[in-house]
């Protein structure tokens, strides 16, 4: 068991994810579904370090799951990540420059039972945009047979050097 954990950890260190460009669909290497390039940019967040953390963790989780199970991870399609945010004790927090935060993921849900808190997304309509995008992604996954049992994991693309 210990050996497996060490091997898993070593594999994680070897992953090809590029933390410097976490939101670039062409570079990250773990997004293989056909994303919609025309998503309203307002749907994306405003705080860089939080989003960078969330997407980095998502990339690692997907790689870990797929390497352990040998199956396509449903995290590629949809998930809700519950995160705690802390002040970094080593330096001052500057809310404007978005530095000095620390984050911890408490829980990850990837099923239809994830509570959406739909009403809070109404001002920007972000949840509505998410549903439209989700239906496109599901259609793409069906066409590529990624959701069949057991589907193979998608190939991992290396980030360009």
């Amino acid at each position: 068991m210990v050996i497996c954990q060490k091997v898993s950890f070593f594999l994680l260190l070897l992953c090809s994810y590029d933390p410097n460009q976490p939101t670039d669909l062409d570079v990250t290497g773990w997004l293989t579904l056909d994303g919609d390039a025309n998503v309203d940019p307002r749907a994306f967040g405003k705080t860089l370090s939080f989003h960078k953390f969330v997407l980095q963790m998502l990339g690692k989780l997907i790689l870990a799951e797929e390497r352990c199970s040998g199956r396509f991870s449903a995290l590629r399609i949809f998930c809700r990540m519950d995160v705690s945010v802390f002040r970094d004790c080593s330096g001052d927090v500057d809310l404007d420059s978005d530095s000095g935060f620390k984050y911890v993921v408490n829980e990850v849900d990837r099923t239809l039972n994830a509570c959406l808190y739909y009403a809070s997304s109404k001002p920007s309509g972000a949840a509505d945009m998410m549903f439209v995008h989700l239906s496109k992604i599901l259609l793409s996954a069906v066409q590529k047979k990624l959701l069949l049992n057991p589907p193979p994991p998608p190939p991992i693309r290396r980030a360009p050097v």
Partner: protein
Amino acid sequence: MEKPTRFSVTLLDWDDFLQILLMRKGWRWDMLWRSTDLILGGLNLGCDYLCVIHNEINYNSYHNHSRNPELPFKMKPGDSKIYLESMSTLGQHVSIWPAPSEYIVTAQKLETQRILQYSATSLDLQHPLVIPLEPQDLKSIVDSILSGEREGVVKREYSGFLKHVITKYTKNSEEILQKSLEEDQRYQNDGLFPRTTWFLQPFLPHLIRLGELRTYIVDGAIFYTVSTTPVDFDPTLTQYVAAEIIRPLETFRLVGYLPESLVFSSPSLQL
């Protein structure tokens, strides 16, 4: 030929769907796996796994609707095995989202925490330590939490809606523990499911006082984030607001230490 760009949607209620899967024959079963591209939904294993499968509880009681004696899944003993086998067979021909295995992965909270630890460590970040507990150690650990000797939370895998979460604020913790261990022992004899594991996590008071940020991701893109806060220190009751600006929890301000007086330092984030 041009690929279709939209789904044609058919709603199938749970009774019909369950009946088709339990029968596993007839024209409706044939229709399901020959003519369907995608099935959305299925049995939720994200709540108290053992009890739902073994049909011993009223699922609705979790949501304070205990007056309704009807089981929402309407499965008889033995049905769960046939259901899971049918879903597995069906899943070889038809795309199912979420796959039944994904519900099981979600229920494996200890494994999820381990993967989160590996992922955080590989990014040179910290993650709270999680310690699996042996059944014989459970009582002493819980006692030490209740007495204040230890700051921690004890949780069980394959459970949900805080049914198997014990903190120093939990009432009837001994009863919860005893019943769970008895159930676990009884269901092991079926050989269908693995033993559930309890584990110890650090107690994070901010989860009760200040809540957390819940962010929604589709296809690797963040669509929106919500800040949720328990009402009256009860994690089952939640107030929430759009988290347009991400900020550390310390920048939230508690007035008089009453949860209902929680205010935000930014006017745009007023509840």
